[in-house]
């Protein structure tokens, strides 16, 4: 067995540390070593997007990265979105627009959508659909998810214009 390595990183604003084999995937490290099971493991080869997290603010597949590669990085998982028991506006929009059914893809959907909205503040519906293709929903609930993302865009615009 390969020697274990120490991984130190910031997850959802907290300094965390663990020891693991170098072959441990980031998603397994988050779930098994740090107890953060909100990030889901789906296909384990980068297709389904269920394991999407933010790495230094940008969406990545946590199954296509080794935990040791995230040493020193800042990670945001779905557990880090709500503040003081209040849902993040995008989570709220998912809730209101029935954008989840079984919920398995939801953490990945939320984090992929957050990164997309950071880089595309005023997206068209086609752009939203293209971006959400990064995460697979097997309940085929895409319509609600698209509507939730559109609602989040509108809510943010309304917030900015002071309404």
């Amino acid at each position, binding site marked *: 067995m390969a020697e274990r390595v120490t991984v130190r990183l910031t997850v959802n604003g907290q300094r965390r540390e663990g020891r693991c*084999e170098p072959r441990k995937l980031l998603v397994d490290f988050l779930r098994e070593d740090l107890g953060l099971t909100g990030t889901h493991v789906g296909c384990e080869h980068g297709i389904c997007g269920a394991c999407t997290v933010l790495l230094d603010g940008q*969406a*990545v597949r946590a199954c296509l990265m*080794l935990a040791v590669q995230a040493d020193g990085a800042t990670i945001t998982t779905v557990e880090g979105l709500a503040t003081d028991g209040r849902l993040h506006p995008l989570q709220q929009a998912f809730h209101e627009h029935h954008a989840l059914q079984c919920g398995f893809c939801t953490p990945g959907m939320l984090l992929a959508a957050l990164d997309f909205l950071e880089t595309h503040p005023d997206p068209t519906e086609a752009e939203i659909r293209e971006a959400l293709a990064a995460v697979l929903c097997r309940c085929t609930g895409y319509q609600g998810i698209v509507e939730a993302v559109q609602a989040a865009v509108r809510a943010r615009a309304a917030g900015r214009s002071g309404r």
Partner: protein
Amino acid sequence: MKPPPFEYHAPASLEEALALLVRYGGEAKLLAGGQSLVPLLNFRLLRPAALVDLNRIPGLAYIREEDGRLVLGAMTRQRAIEFSDVVRRRLPLLHAATRLVGHLPIRTRGTIGGSLAHADPAAEYPALLTALEGEVVAVSPRGRRVLAAAELFRTYLTTSLGTDEILVEVRLPLPPPGAGWAFEEFSRRHGDFAIVAVAAVVEREGARCRRARLAAAGAGPVPVRLREAEAILERDGLGEDALRAAAARAAELVEPDSDVHASAEYRRHLTAVLTERALRRALARADGGDG
């Protein structure tokens, strides 16, 4: 599944990385963005003795315009290319091709050098390098060498890079101002590998074609430069008949295989369709239109 055990190294310099490759004598794999390598590890299709991670080596990610070329460090992320102003302004073909590489979360990690060294014949960057007559720079303990696209790609997932060699830079010649371009791809879903894709660059002089560059992805074991189709345009101009003849010739120049995604026959058909489409779009842009 989970990756098999390996020794992990994250060298802080190229010299150190090269020394590691020598030490493992071909049993180590280089880890760039990991978006192709890590799935292969997870499936246990690869069992390298060691991974040499390039991500902690400074100075391997940059985008510069230099001597009529766009020069990119091998570890430049696809995401950085997608949002680069100089890429969008000077080589919009690269911007368009990049947006077809996987999805944004894949492009966050994936690198241009990694994609070229992985050499998937259905991937966008190998076809782009081929169409633009680009080259890559590789270093080894024996020194540096420059490889043209045609020298780099050998067959499926195989390049002529040695096991002690690291691809460090990608050089893409900039088409002259006014040249038209297009990257046309067909895939079942956005973000999938292309079933077939065609990159085109066209320099026109009225109805004459000064220079055409065409390359296909997904149509054989390596990206295919469609030279004889280019020659038809350069000889016969850019009229309807020449466009159709070039597209028909393109389909004869590729030797695709059948797989679970598409038959060889269908890929051949797509090569003609996408060549014609790419040429028309490139011509519209060469006229100053948006295509």
